[in-house]
């Protein structure tokens, strides 16, 4: 079985969010970059677990981005995965990114394409579904468990108001979230090994963007907290009832 894991580079969760160029660009100076947590903790680790259970599984990693995404691919390779690919396309919109991955996955004959449920920077939650549509295969979204056997995948998925178990024949696309696997820390052997694992650069196709970001905006600062003395909690209830009118 061939698994393709989609890896996205995102700012660290504690990074200061600021913009430059008239709010047209994320201010990346001094920002630490990480693998998007959903891609790393759930999609990639689950792929590694499937390979640990069945040595014939191969794991390829793919990212769509500029050369500055390569350290993130190396980090992912340190956790696991056999080979990695970077499609050279900077600032693609979701559809362009999905088109690159779908084209690559179809040509490469992958059985399973794994993504995180969303990225923590763009919060689009759309790449997985778009890849599945462009490949014309099923999409199991928001999966919290995933097993594969006999050419079939079984997943538990979050749905509105609960969860359900789905079964479908491979190939397919799964978007992964909490529950699927536990975060792992790369070990020295993994980190050393990652240096020599293949990282190939692939040219992007000419798919056009469907959307473009015009500008960013920061939310207005909060006015400040109104503190109520600890020995008068009734006053808090009164304020919420009469002033804020929220209860």
């Amino acid at each position, binding site marked *: 079985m061939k698994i393709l894991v989609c890896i996205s580079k995102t700012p660290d*969760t*504690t990074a200061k969010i600021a913009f430059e160029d008239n709010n047209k660009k994320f201010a990346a100076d001094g920002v630490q970059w990480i693998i998007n*947590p959903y891609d790393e*903790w759930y999609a990639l680790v689950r792929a590694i677990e499937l390979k640990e259970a069945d040595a014939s599984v191969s794991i390829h990693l793919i990212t769509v981005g500029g050369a500055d995404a390569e350290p993130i691919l190396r980090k992912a390779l340190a956790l696991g995965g056999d080979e990695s690919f970077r499609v050279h396309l900077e600032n693609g919109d*979701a*559809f362009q990114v*999905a088109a690159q991955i779908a084209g690559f996955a179809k040509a490469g004959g992958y059985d399973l394409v794994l993504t995180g449920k*969303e990225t*923590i*920077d*763009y*919060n*689009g939650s*759309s*790449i997985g*579904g778009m890849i*599945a*549509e*462009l490949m014309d295969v*099923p*999409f199991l*979204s*928001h999966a919290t468990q995933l097993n594969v056997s006999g050419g079939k995948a079984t997943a538990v998925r*979050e*749905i*509105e*108001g*609960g*969860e*359900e*178990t789905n*079964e479908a*024949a491979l190939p397919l696309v799964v978007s992964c979230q*909490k*529950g699927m696997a536990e975060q792992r820390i790369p070990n020295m052997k993994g980190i050393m090994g990652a240096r020599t694992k293949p990282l190939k650069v692939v040219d992007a196709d000419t798919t056009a*963007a*469907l*959307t*473009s*970001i*015009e*500008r*960013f*905006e*920061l*939310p207005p600062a*909060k006015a400040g*907290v*109104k*503190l109520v003395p*600890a020995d008068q*909690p009734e006053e*808090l*209830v*009164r304020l*919420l*009832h009469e002033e*804020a009118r*929220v*209860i």
Partner: protein
Amino acid sequence: MVLVFIDQNEGTIKKSSFEAAAYGAAIAQQTGKTAEAILLGDTPADADQLGNYGISKVHVVNQASLKTMDAQVYAQVLQEAADTLHAEIIIFSNNTTAKAVAPRLSARMKAGMVSGAIALPDTTNGFTVKKSVFSGKAFAHVNILTDKKIIALNPNAFAVTTSSGSASVHPLECSAVQPAVSVTQVNKVVGEIPLSEASVVVSGGRGLKGPENWGFVTELAGLLGAATACSRPVADIHWRPHHEHVGQTGLAIAPNLYIAIGISGAIQHLAGVNRSKTIVVINKDPEAPFFKAADYGIVGDLFEVMPKIIAEVKRIKGVA
């Protein structure tokens, strides 16, 4: 025409779908179009109420294969329906169904999509939609470049106004599609208010010391008609179920009122709740970062404060 996808749960329309309907109707008004709705599966009992949200017609595609949600099937049927009805703008409520279906539809129709929209589009120069990015820490204004457009509206983001109107229900024929996915088991959480849609959320953190103390959270939530939530470590150590975990790596919510009990307010937690309209923090540490993001707060021991708050809420609600 603006076509709003309506999601239903156990035979009634979801609150967030009514929001999407009102949002779609507002866009229709803004762009001189009509607003209609589309429902897949059985007709819910309250379908005609969509008229109160500005919808003139409700189209229902009822096929056996649509009773469960397979994103591939839904996208195919929705495209056919959108083509038949000449829909130009398609609206979803940005929930788990939309997150599975809308991107497929976007790729299928080559219709540019904005998910997580929080305001009406700006049509003065293009068609630009404001959406939440960086887990609630910023907004992006995204221009949709294609003629056909898809928008997935965040729950609790759009202020709904209703007026009395009526919507007529029409069956719509679409080609039958066989799902490639089979649903072998469904577990619905019954009787709980869905966290993503709740207008009041009571949330607990590690400061509660253990699951045996969650009565403070659940009792207050019960009194306020609120959903319950928790911080990530609380779900990780299994004091509470995973679906209650809010934050950067959990659910992002935007209720009217968020009450945080014994939660420090780490940046990753704030990322999931900072769009709440009013934030109340109860924490014994005056330096807890949550106070910087709060509107109201008490610096105090929750074990002393919470019983008094609960008693006072009972008093004003007239509960014995």
